[in-house]
């Protein structure tokens, strides 16, 4: 009996996929080179898809994969952008069926949820009860709870609600060497190697998250959105630093460089927009926070319709299509410079990228602020014909510059794209990662 037959016996015929057309969705994630390969008839890999319904079945799949000498790839929302999902010659585990909302402790604001649950679905469920996670990545309608944990995700309201690491209170997982583990929710934990930290950004290397305990908050009833136009991106960085240091933070903030300001608002300068949340009947609290912010960043002015940005945010596929039709591919790259290096990184990297053959445009924005620095996000337009040719060089150069000014990643993860450069940041630590992963997954089933 071959691996597919064994998996069928374990899961039932309906939950194993080997043929067309059903295998197609699993041929790629959302990494730009893979999208373009699909559009241009890229070659197809061989793999088997297994769709488990619980931890027991996941353990069964891992056992069969191990015995058959096959690796395992994990497919959740499929929205990964750094080439982490690599199905070739593997058993693909699709986590879509792990989508239950198991319980909700409203007194604590804690929800227990299956790892395959789509973030937007969970958020919607909470909203209907007057709650929110405040975790809204742009991929909210596909990215899953487990995907966000594994890839260390963050949402647009990070400055108020934090990243996935700030709302993850405990989890359950299947670990190849150990089987099913359960670590219940705790508001803070002071025990060795807490799994919620170990699994955050683990990229599926140490186990498969099957359930998460997440923090929710009462949904804000009052929101104020403001925006102002600054003379330059550099000036904007300085103001962001000020609010990060003074801890007068809005719930959402975004600074667009001159290019993105022009594209979004048709204005000259750098747009800074923010949103402040408050509970019901607390307009004065929200107003006071917005006023304090104005004292630090400047009076709201120059941008008539802040809403425009919020509306355009989810219409990216229309822009991508226009660009694709014009022969242009779009890559995004995010880094974590310290405040002292943020402007330098922006200027230096923009100029380097613009000087590269095949690159036709570069823009950037800052969407996440931290006390020591920020998350800066570059959008790079590349001639589609040259994409595969320049791709590695593009990343190599970008990461080398980023490493000079702070962290080489922010929220998309390492994947295959950053893997060759991880030593730039992890001096002597790569070996530790390898050893921890080997201890928990001795056969290397989960490591591409």
């Amino acid at each position, binding site marked *: 009996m071959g691996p597919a037959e064994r998996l069928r016996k374990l899961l039932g015929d*309906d939950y194993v*996929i080997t043929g*067309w*057309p*059903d295998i*197609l*969705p*699993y041929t790629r994630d*959302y990494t730009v080179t893979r*999208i373009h390969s*699909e*559009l241009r*008839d890229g070659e197809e890999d061989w793999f088997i898809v297994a*769709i488990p319904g619980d931890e027991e079945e996941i353990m069964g799949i891992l056992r069969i994969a191990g015995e058959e000498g096959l690796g395992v790839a994990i*497919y959740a*929302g*499929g*929205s990964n952008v750094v080439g982490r999902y690599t199905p070739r010659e593997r058993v693909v585990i*699709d986590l*879509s*069926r792990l*989508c239950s909302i198991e319980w909700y402790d409203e007194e604590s604001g804690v929800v227990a949820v299956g790892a*395959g649950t*789509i973030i*937007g*679905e969970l958020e*919607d469920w909470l909203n209907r009860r007057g709650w929110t996670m405040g975790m809204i990545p742009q*991929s909210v*309608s*596909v990215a899953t709870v487990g995907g966000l944990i594994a890839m260390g995700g963050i949402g647009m309201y990070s400055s108020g609600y934090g990243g996935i690491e700030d709302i993850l209170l405990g989890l359950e997982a299947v670990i190849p060497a150990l089987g099913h583990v359960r670590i219940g929710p705790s508001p803070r934990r002071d025990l060795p190697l807490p799994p919620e930290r170990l699994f955050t950004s683990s990229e599926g290397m140490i186990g498969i998250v099957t359930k998460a305990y997440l923090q929710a908050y009462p949904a804000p009833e009052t929101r104020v959105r403001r925006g102002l136009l600054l003379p330059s991106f550099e000036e904007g960085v300085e103001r962001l630093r000020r609010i990060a240091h003074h801890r007068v933070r809005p719930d959402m903030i975004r600074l667009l460089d001159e290019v993105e300001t022009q594209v979004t608002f048709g204005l000259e300068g750098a747009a800074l927009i923010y949103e402040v949340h408050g509970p019901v009947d607390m307009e004065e609290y929200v107003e006071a926070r917005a006023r304090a912010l104005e004292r630090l960043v400047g009076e709201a002015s120059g941008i008539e319709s802040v809403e425009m940005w919020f509306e355009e945010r*989810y*219409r*990216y*596929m*229309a822009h*991508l*299509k226009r660009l*694709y*039709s014009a022969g242009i591919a779009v890559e995004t790259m995010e880094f974590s410079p310290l405040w002292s290096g943020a402007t330098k990184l922006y200027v230096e990297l923009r100029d380097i990228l613009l000087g590269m053959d095949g690159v036709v445009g570069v823009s950037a924005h800052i969407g996440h602020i931290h006390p020591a620095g920020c998350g800066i996000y570059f959008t790079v337009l590349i001639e589609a014909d040259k994409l595969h040719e320049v791709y590695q060089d593009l990343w190599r150069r970008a990461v080398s510059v980023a490493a000079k000014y702070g962290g080489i990643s922010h929220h998309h993860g390492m994947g295959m794209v950053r893997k060759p450069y991880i030593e730039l940041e992890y001096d002597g630590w790569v070996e530790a990662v390898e050893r921890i992963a080997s201890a928990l997954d001795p056969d290397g089933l989960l490591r591409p």
Partner: protein
Amino acid sequence: MDIEEILLQCLLCPGACTPSCPVYLGTRYTPSRPVNIARALYRGLVKGGEELLVASGYCSLCDRCREACPVGNDLPSVIRIARRRLGDARARKLGEEAIYMPSPEAGEAVLPGMRLKIIDTWSMYRAVSYGWMVRYRLQAGYSEDVDVHTGPYTIELLENIDIKIPIGRYMLHIPCKMDRGYIERFRRVFGREEGVLERCMGGGGLDLIAPKLLRMIPRPGTDIPVLTQCGRAAIRMRSMGLEAYTPLEVYLGGTR
């Protein structure tokens, strides 16, 4: 309509419409996500891999993905085209067999004064179905008309006679576009629902075109009766041991 434009737009998006799809929500079968149907159809219609057009069968044509799409991309229309193109022998055979008749078992009955009409194009379906459509026919197999609803005539009827039937606690099942406009009417007649089930239970012809998906729909977790506008969904839920009724069944005094 520029099929390639529409499909390309879908291919460049990770699937903003995913949580709106009642078939995906019901089955959690990744290939049934609208964006994945679009990927198969891109190959099938643009690149010429006819066999991939069968993926169009995963759609119940409820139109929710178009409404949820940030740019209103009209994928359902492309899916209808794919179904028509498919038109192979197997599909035609299926079509001939599947002339849809009111099913007393599903609580569908031809009541005095009710108009019957066979609808055989999508536009006709759209134009006339809201309000009084009773049945329509599956045309050539995987054609646009495979979407089989029992029709909202039942609730329309209840409204016409203007009565209230308080039935206590119930879950409302509204997976399809056709049904969604009628939530208020349900409430007026039956009182406020306990909750809403939005997943497709196979009513939109899924059992005819994608039996595999039907097998994947898990039992909805409800221990109170379900009121559904969809007769096929009612049959299916009953086969799962749930208490499920169409409004007409309630009006006529139940099936059992």
